């Protein structure tokens, strides 16, 4: 349809321009040529921005990953040295494990909470806007600010979480100070911060499911449980897929919470890939090494996304 409209528009232009061109008899750009030139002019600011601030740095980062460069001395070509170092870097192994732990902890929790609440809210007739606002609110808040609030809440003795647990006779761990609990504490905070986004996405999806399907199922005697598993969930799978892919991508890039709440500690228990990129690049000034880690991150995200695209045929149901 779009193509048809395009031809139509060009046709209108041509009939108007043709007599003019004959009168002036100057070699001019054809109308299509003019349009093309105009298009590039319109694209120019955006294209320039992308090239300067995205494409060039991306290529440069790949190049840098093959160099030894500690900023004070001139860069030296090092071949695959940075990548070889990564293989034996025990901190990098921790960082990789932590990031995967964070992702696999956060994504299922986020999805269960957001999907559950979306389905639940969808059955409510009144107050939807208010509930949705309350659950969505953390999403738009400044991550650094809420990370600090949670750090205060996790504070041993004085923090509300420890106080509440003591009040019911359950002395908790020191949370952010405990190597076993620190990452879990960050995951809990991140679920709180992020689930509202997917919830709103699912709510939009749910409202697109025709009521008649449910009515037909109810006439056939399907109970609420069956209706969820046989109708709601299958029809929602395209949105669940989108949510999984994007939540996984953003989880692999976790930085703010880890930097603010624990700065990667204790004993690197919450150090993440991006935090490690930051430390290498901007605290130890190992520009080449930081770039190599960044490209490993990119590769991991790319492969994960690709794998999910491949697997989607098995569970995602498009109408």
């Amino acid at each position, binding site marked *: 349809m*779009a193509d048809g409209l*395009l031809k139509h*528009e060009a046709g*209108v232009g041509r009939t*108007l321009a043709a007599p003019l061109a004959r009168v002036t008899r100057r070699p001019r750009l054809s109308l*299509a040529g003019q*349009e*093309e030139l*105009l*298009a590039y002019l*319109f*694209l*120019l*600011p*955006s*294209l320039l921005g*992308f090239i300067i601030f995205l494409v060039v*740095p*991306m290529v440069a980062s790949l190049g*840098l990953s093959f160099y030894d460069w500690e900023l004070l001395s001139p860069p030296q070509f090092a071949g695959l040295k940075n990548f070889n170092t990564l293989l034996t870097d025990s901190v990098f192994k921790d960082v990789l494990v932590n990031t995967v732990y964070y992702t696999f902890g956060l994504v299922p929790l986020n999805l269960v909470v957001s999907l559950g609440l979306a389905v*639940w*809210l969808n059955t*409510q007739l009144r107050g939807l806007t208010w*509930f949705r606002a309350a*659950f*969505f*609110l*953390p999403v*738009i*808040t*400044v*991550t*650094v*600010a809420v990370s*600090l609030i*949670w*750090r*205060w809440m996790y504070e041993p*003795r*004085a923090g*509300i979480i420890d106080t509440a647990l003591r009040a019911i006779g359950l002395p908790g761990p020191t949370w952010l100070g405990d190597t076993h609990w620190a990452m879990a504490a960050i995951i809990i905070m991140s679920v709180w911060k992020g689930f509202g*986004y997917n919830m*709103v*996405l699912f*709510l939009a999806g749910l409202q697109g499911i025709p009521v008649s399907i449910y009515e037909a199922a109810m006439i056939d005697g399907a109970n609420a449980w069956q209706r969820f598993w046989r109708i709601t969930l299958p029809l929602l799978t395209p949105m669940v897929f*989108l949510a999984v892919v994007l939540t996984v*991508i*953003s989880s692999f*890039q976790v930085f703010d919470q880890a*930097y603010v709440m624990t700065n990667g500690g204790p004993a690197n228990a919450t150090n993440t890939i*991006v935090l490690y*990129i*930051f430390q290498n*690049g*901007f605290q130890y000034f190992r520009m080449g090494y930081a*770039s190599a880690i*960044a490209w490993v*991150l*990119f590769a991991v*995200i790319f492969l994960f996304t690709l794998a999910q695209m491949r697997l989607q045929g098995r569970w995602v149901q498009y109408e």
Partner: protein
Amino acid sequence: MSRHFFAPFSYLVLTLLAAACLVPFVIMLLTAFKPDNEVFNRAWLPSRLAWENFARAFTFFPFARFLFNTMVVAVGGTALHLIASCLAAYAFARLRFRGRDALFLLYLGTLMVPQQVTIVPLFLMMRDVGWVDTFWALILPGAFHALGVFLLRQFFMTIPRELEESAFIDGASRLRILGQIIVPLSKPALATLALFTFIREWNSFLWPLIVTTSPEMRTLSVGLTLFTGQYGTEWNLLMAAATVTLLPTLVLFAFAQRYFVAGIALTGFGGR
């Protein structure tokens, strides 16, 4: 039937859950108003409202300056992103040129590139042109994002061509058509994009952390982290500062919730 029986119970539980979700904000406010000697007390409520904490937060660090910087970055970045995206989206939606579809796919592909892949060379670039610690470095790199081009292109394509054809025949330039016909018709999409972009800029942390070094150029997010550590953490001042940081986004959200919801339903990734 059973629905009527359970409805009040369901409301009650949902209300409790929603309230639980807001607890961190309540804690923030309560702590922000506590006098110094009550911060570590078990008592929930402050004995008096220590309004002076807010004034102290502003003098403890150049907090007003952080606020100003963040405002400049968020407003400037949003304006630039909207203008560049509008122009590009119009080209993708309405104009014909070679390689259009391939280029659009490339734009979309950039959404998959994690920002962290570019930060090291980007920082070196900024250092080489002397932009470290300037608004240029804070604003420009974040202003080009494929989300705007994608969202606006999708919206422009839903606008009937007939509306602009008569203007075109009357001799209006494409730029005028964009400014006087397309943009006014796209207000909801532009509002959504502006909100997403503003929030992203307001929340941005890693890049400002890297590219600013002097206190005068810090943004709120970076400035907040300075409250911890230096003299031990002064939680009441920090919570007062956090309150000021969160306030603009909360106000924005109160007035524009429907744009967020519409934007998420439309793209599935905007504002993530």
